[in-house]
């Protein structure tokens, strides 16, 4: 490449504020043509805002966008598409009951009649599929193909619109390790054809594996841009957080005691009578963490929900400390589980764990609002006691700002999660169910939450950990069970396994069968 060739993307002095929050501060970025450029940063560092400006969702307050040497105005996503920019969102924007080819032409039809577009798209898709190893059947219905394939449809959609610059937002969050590897092969192929790719992720391993250059964002600023070959995960983490970070979790070997949770042949069916749990059996002892690995959607959520009393079981038994839990009828709900010493940090804090318009103190009593210590008398709640209790817990868990009167929606993701974790752990439960403990949580808070989980284990409590982050499972768990299609595929000890073996189990491949 010569010095005179313009950059594919050049951003100069981009600033964007939302009210008092400066989301992007004077950001400059240069991305070479035909490069894979990573952008890392904690939640709220401004990555998404920057990409939204580039894709025309937001208008920058100041700054300039230069695409292939041409200063370009991008007031909306149509303009972004005309400029050759395509975006693959974290949450796919596909019409589930349309076929692949219908999704691809949606919004890019050639005229009022569909058939010519479909014929043309089918031919183009075949060429693209062959060229980039994107094996997708144009006529399969989107809801019937795997998540990995759906993602390829999103990429095809962008290529069909002649995108030369592809932005991928957290693309591997929903993929198995094998699917992620395939995605990386596709991205390498695209790069070799001269496409420019921007990869937004918080997984440092992926940055190291696939990118050519990487930029780090912190608090709305671009703190560094380096050649990937010249850096290390530790250095990137430090740049992201602004201090040295412990990437490994420090913990002593487990000291398991009596069996706390005993589950046998547990079955769950959803509203459509589809089996989501197909006979799960597992045990957790006091003082140990059982990690459940698996690709999202293979029954982990249902396992947490049925144990937490949110959904009914279709069969099987659950015992706590040797006593059976009544799974029948209306007695089986969240209240009954809490009464038996089960605390539950749900997977989705915004939809389940917290009431976003409630203030912190109202959330701190959520689920425990029947507790006698929060009642003034038979009729009224003791709001003052709950507020005081909240202030104490917020201080112990370093929730910032430590203001019980602030509404939950006004806390950052990490601090919201700390509120939920504080509420559940401070109840001193016998069993803690914890789902995606650090999803959307900044690195500093991840460290803190991990320490709290280990500390609870060391007090001799049983912990069931569900996470789609394999790294988290590997570093926290004392035992690992892998779920696939509503069943447990196998159990491993963290010391005796690796991401490759777990990845195979997550995809439903067992050694015996292979």
């Amino acid at each position, binding site marked *: 490449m010569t010095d005179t060739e313009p950059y594919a993307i050049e951003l100069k002095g981009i600033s964007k504020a939302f009210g*008092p929050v400066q989301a992007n501060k004077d950001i400059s970025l240069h991305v070479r043509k035909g490069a894979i450029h990573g952008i890392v940063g904690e939640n709220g560092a401004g990555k998404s805002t920057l990409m939204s400006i580039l894709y025309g969702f937001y208008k920058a307050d100041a700054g300039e966008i230069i695409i292939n040497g041409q200063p370009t105005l991008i007031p909306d996503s149509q303009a972004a598409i005309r400029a050759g920019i395509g975006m693959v969102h974290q949450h796919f924007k596909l019409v589930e009951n349309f076929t692949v080819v219908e999704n691809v032409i949606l919004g890019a039809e050639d005229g009022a009649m569909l058939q010519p577009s479909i014929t043309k798209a089918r031919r183009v898709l075949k060429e693209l599929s062959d060229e980039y190893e994107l094996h997708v059947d144009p006529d399969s219905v989107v809801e019937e193909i795997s998540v990995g394939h759906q993602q390829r449809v999103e990429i095809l959609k962008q290529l069909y619109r002649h995108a030369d610059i592809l932005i991928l937002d957290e693309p591997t969050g929903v993929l198995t390790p094998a699917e992620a590897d395939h995605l990386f092969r596709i991205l390498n192929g695209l790069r070799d054809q001269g496409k420019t790719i921007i990869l937004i992720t918080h997984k440092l391993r992926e940055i190291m594996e696939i990118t050519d250059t990487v930029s780090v964002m912190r608090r709305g600023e671009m703190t560094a841009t380096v050649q990937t070959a010249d850096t290390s995960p530790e250095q990137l983490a430090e740049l992201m957080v602004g201090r040295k970070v412990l990437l490994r979790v420090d913990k002593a070997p487990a000291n398991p005691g009596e069996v706390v949770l005993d589950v046998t042949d547990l079955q769950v069916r959803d509203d459509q009578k589809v089996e989501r749990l197909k006979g799960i059996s597992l045990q957790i002892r006091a003082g140990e963490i059982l990690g459940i690995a698996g690709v999202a959607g293979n029954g982990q959520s249902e396992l947490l929900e049925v144990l937490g009393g949110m959904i009914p079981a279709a069969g099987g038994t659950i015992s706590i400390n040797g006593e059976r839990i009544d799974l029948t009828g209306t007695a089986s709900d969240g209240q*009954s589980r809490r009464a038996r010493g089960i605390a539950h940090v749900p997977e989705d804090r915004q*939809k*389940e764990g*917290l009431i976003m*318009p409630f203030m912190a103190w109202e959330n701190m009593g959520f689920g425990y609002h029947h507790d006698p210590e929060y009642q003034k008398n038979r009729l009224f*709640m003791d709001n003052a006691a709950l507020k005081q209790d909240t202030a104490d817990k917020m201080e112990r868990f370093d929730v910032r700002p430590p203001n019980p009167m602030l509404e939950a929606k006004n806390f950052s993701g990490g601090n919201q999660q700390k509120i939920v974790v504080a509420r559940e752990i401070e109840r001193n439960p016998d069993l803690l169910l914890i789902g995606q403990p650090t999803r959307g949580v900044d690195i500093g808070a991840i460290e803190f939450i991990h320490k709290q989980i280990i500390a609870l284990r060391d007090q001799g409590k049983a912990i069931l950990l569900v996470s789609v982050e394999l790294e988290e499972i590997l570093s926290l768990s004392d035992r690992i069970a892998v779920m696939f299609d509503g069943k447990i595929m196998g159990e491993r000890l963290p010391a005796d396994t690796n991401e490759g073996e777990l990845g195979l189990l997550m995809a439903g491949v067992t050694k015996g069968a292979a």
Partner: protein
Amino acid sequence: MDKMPKWADIALIPFINLVLALVVSGLVVLYIGESPWEAMSVMVRGSIGSAYGWGYTLYYATNFIFTGLAVAVAFHARMFNIGGEGQAAIGGLGVAIVCLSVPWPHWTIALLAATAGAAAFGAAWAAIPAYLQAKRGSHIVITTIMFNFIASALLVYLLVNVFRVPGSMAPETARFADPTHLPNAYDMAPWLGFSRSTPLNVSFLVALAACVGVWLLIWRTRLGYEIRAYGHSQTAAVYAGINPLRIIMISMLISGGLSGLLAINSVMGEAERLVIDPVQGAGFVGIAVALMGRSHPVGVFLAALLFGMLYQGGAELEFEMPSVSREMLLVIQALVIMFTGALDNMVRMPVERIFLRLRKGG
């Protein structure tokens, strides 16, 4: 960060909505060749310019407080109860049965019993749609509005075939016995200058008590906490072990009961008999009142007062300006309901943007 300060949400936006409604109403008045200022001053004078006007304004406001609170309580559980009309009518049936079936010795006891009867009948009428929603998922908006028609038809049938006084042509019950007559504002406080026939009666105090009761229920009790939690997030409520069925049923029963209470004002306090349409649209006005009052009892009280003025002032306007017809008044009232209730977001979004810009500038 919130998009704008609380005072703007509570006070500024309803105020702008109201001004817009009045401006458009003014244009309508202008169109028929009358002076908007003149019309406006007639309405204000007619509604709050005299003890006579106040008597009617507060009488209407009492109705709207009950139905407004009813809608507000259901709103907190994210339930859109638009069956206030029917629940209040059936509440009237409860009042009539209570008042006619027992020779009450004194109005205080009769009021207690009628309150219970009105609330029980109103709640029972809301219970069926609530059950269908909770158990079968039948949408509460559809079922409650259909139950308004059923209530109206049922009332016609009962008044014609069961309760009609033999020999009378009017489809209404017999007049309630004297001891059940509620004291009106003149009886209670003659020095305030109300006339003997003022419709404002002791039910107004019951309405005020209901405001306090609803406030305590929603913000001070466990049940209110559960209702609000369920209203904000049903999945979170299930996570916390709050039974959705129970919340739907209880909040709708309370809502229906509050609607039913309207009858102690209009049936027992004013008409002193059950007539064929005891509610006169107050059930629907309650929706606008709750929306404008942000589902808060204080807001509901103020909005009810405003709509009371609108009703009474409108009646005066019709009387003093012959060119302003009954239909014209309906248009004006509809405009206020539309601007304060349905078109809320039209004003809200620009105001939010202005506040965001102000904050950034400052």
